[in-house]
């Protein structure tokens, strides 16, 4: 167990080191996220600057899903271009460690994107971010983990597939429907003044159970699924 976590951390550190030197993924994903938020602002914000109810949480989660998909594709594209995924799979570490390492790296990247995206949503759509900051961060963390746990596995499998750029959303979006529903609904509760925060906690519980089921399923099947 310790050795699996240790190898996973080494793989994640390798990915993060590559990223820290080029900063390609952070910059491109962030730029994509910011422009996507702008497009949503132009489509939803009314002429008198009012925001339709529920728009802020929806925009936040849609942008997260889209930029997360782009980040996932790019992370593995890098491995494919240099044909290093095979090397990674041939190295004497267990499959779950490879999966976990990739997942850590993707999660840290998405956390960085969220650190910019969430304040931006508050700024553009007057969302009360500080109403329940702990709950908001937990919802975002649990939702991102759910999205990335499924996404990392399928992005890794799609590396060698033809037309992988379109196939990742084709597979991923139906599978993360519960994450999107729970994330949007829970965040919307926080963003709506005078609403019951207990409802948001219920959605957080649902997200956490989704994470538990799909993370264990991904770890369990990473052996047969990530074979050559």
């Amino acid at each position, binding site marked *: 167990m310790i050795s699996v976590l240790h190898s996973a951390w080494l793989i994640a550190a390798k990915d993060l080191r590559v990223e820290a030197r080029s900063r390609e993924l952070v910059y491109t994903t962030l730029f994509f996220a910011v422009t996507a938020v702008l497009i949503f602002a132009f489509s939803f914000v009314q002429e008198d600057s009012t925001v339709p109810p529920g728009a802020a949480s929806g925009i936040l989660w849609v942008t997260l899903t889209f930029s997360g998909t782009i980040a996932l594709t790019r992370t593995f594209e890098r491995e494919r271009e240099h044909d290093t995924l095979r090397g990674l799979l041939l190295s004497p570490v267990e499959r779950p460690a490879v999966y976990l390492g990739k997942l850590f790296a993707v999660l840290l990247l998405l956390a960085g994107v969220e650190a910019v995206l969430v304040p931006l949503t508050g700024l553009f759509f007057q969302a009360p971010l500080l109403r329940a900051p702990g709950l908001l961060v937990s919802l975002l963390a649990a939702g991102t983990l759910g999205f990335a746990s*499924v996404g990392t*596995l*399928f992005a890794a*499998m*799609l590396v*060698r*597939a*033809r*037309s992988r750029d379109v*196939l990742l959303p*084709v*597979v991923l*979006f*139906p*599978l993360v*429907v*519960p994450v999107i*529903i*729970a994330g949007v*609904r829970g965040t919307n509760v926080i963003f709506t003044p005078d609403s019951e925060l207990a409802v948001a906690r219920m959605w957080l519980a*649902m997200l956490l*159970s*989704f994470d538990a*089921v*799909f993370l264990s*399923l991904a770890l369990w*099947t990473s052996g*047969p*699924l990530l*074979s050559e």
Partner: protein
Amino acid sequence: MRRAVPGLLLVATAMLAASPFMIDAAPPEVTMGLVQKIFYVHLPSAMLFMVASVVCGTSSAIYLLGGRRLGADRAAFTAAELAIVFGLITLVTGPLWGRKAWGVWWVWDVRLTSTLVMWLLSWSYVLLRRFGGAGSETLSAGVGLFGMALVPFVYWSVNVWRTLHPKTSVVPTLPASMGKPLWWSVAAFACLFAVLFATRARLERLRTDVDMALADADE
């Protein structure tokens, strides 16, 4: 199974041909009137859509975790295609009925939403298979397995909204005059399903046989 196909096809055709008369003879429903007749098509196709999804999920799991047997893979693929067909019938007849019964084509009710998500997942399975290239069997089996684990979550998350769709618990309480044509339709659709399943699985087996023979000839 192959020998049974022509016979089953005959039975399915005869039953489907007779079903309009059975449905016509059933008494009209008090509040909905004529439009309720669509129920005799909607419910059987929804049932077989569920059967196909379950077959696809379990066969994917067997393929992935039970040593990559080709038969399990073929069953999963065939079931995914049939899920698209029967899901389409369900999703077309449902709104036609809903428009008359509820006044709207679509509501984001738990049954409607989860059917739509499961239908999209069978599309993911088939699209991956068609366009994923080599090695897509494993990938689509992953979709089948994860999709099966997804069902309770979709159901739970959508269930928070109020539900309009009639519960399936009404089915056993139906009067015999309505129950008979319903089960007749279910049986007819089930025969059709079995025929399509056997034929499609056989076609897929022949296709892989030809592919393998070609690969052998190339060497």
